[in-house]
């Protein structure tokens, strides 16, 4: 049963107090799927998250409070925070794309510098088959999906940040 506890039209989000859940509808022309995945991931420890696509170009995110009996405030907060996180993820994707060269260069320098050159033992143990990028936190997901396995980017100065 949908209830009007959220101050947005039903077509964007609606709440089901009986089930302690909210549904948000996401226009995929505005938010890439990666951003929806990214935002969903950060909610897995707080609520149950379910995704589907009721019609092409429109994703539905269902967030259910882990415990039954969530108050309207809790549900409102869930929707608000999810919307914020979604916006942050989508925006971050764009910014990362723009500042990619700098971020990649710094990352490689930082990690390469900390690791140092491999020793002979390391080389012996090295698996030369393609190494999948592991991201146990799922946190660099959107970034890594795009750039994680590329080879070194062309030398970039930090001056091209903007």
């Amino acid at each position: 049963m949908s209830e009007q506890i959220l101050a947005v039209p039903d077509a964007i989000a609606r709440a089901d107090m009986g089930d302690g859940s909210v549904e948000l509808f996401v226009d995929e022309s505005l938010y890439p799927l990666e951003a929806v995945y990214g935002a969903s991931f950060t909610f897995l420890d707080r609520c149950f998250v379910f995704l589907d696509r009721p019609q092409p170009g429109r994703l539905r995110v269902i967030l259910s409070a882990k415990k039954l009996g969530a108050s309207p405030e809790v549900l409102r907060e869930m929707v608000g925070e999810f919307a914020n996180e979604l916006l942050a993820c989508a925006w971050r994707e764009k910014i990362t794309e723009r500042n990619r060269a700098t971020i990649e260069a710094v990352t490689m320098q930082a990690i390469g510098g900390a690791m140092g050159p491999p020793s002979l033992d390391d080389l012996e143990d090295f698996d030369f088959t393609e190494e999948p990028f592991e991201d146990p936190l799922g946190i660099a997901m959107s970034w890594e999906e795009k750039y994680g396995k590329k080879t070194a980017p062309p030398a970039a100065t930090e001056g091209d940040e903007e």
Partner: protein
Amino acid sequence: MRELRFPKELYLGEQVDAALNVFARFGRLERDEDELTWIVRVHAASAAKERRLAGELANYALGATIRARGER
């Protein structure tokens, strides 16, 4: 009974299976599919337990899908 319908374009089948393996011991889980969805039917001792089990299973499947996609 609770039925979960995971769209194939959003969830990876092997990760839904992985979730089934992890949660099998907490209830009776039936696996099915149609052209567009992976279907899981969740049976447990009470409606509340079914809700919780379905929720945890769905979270696991989603988290694992996101991680696995990141690794590709």
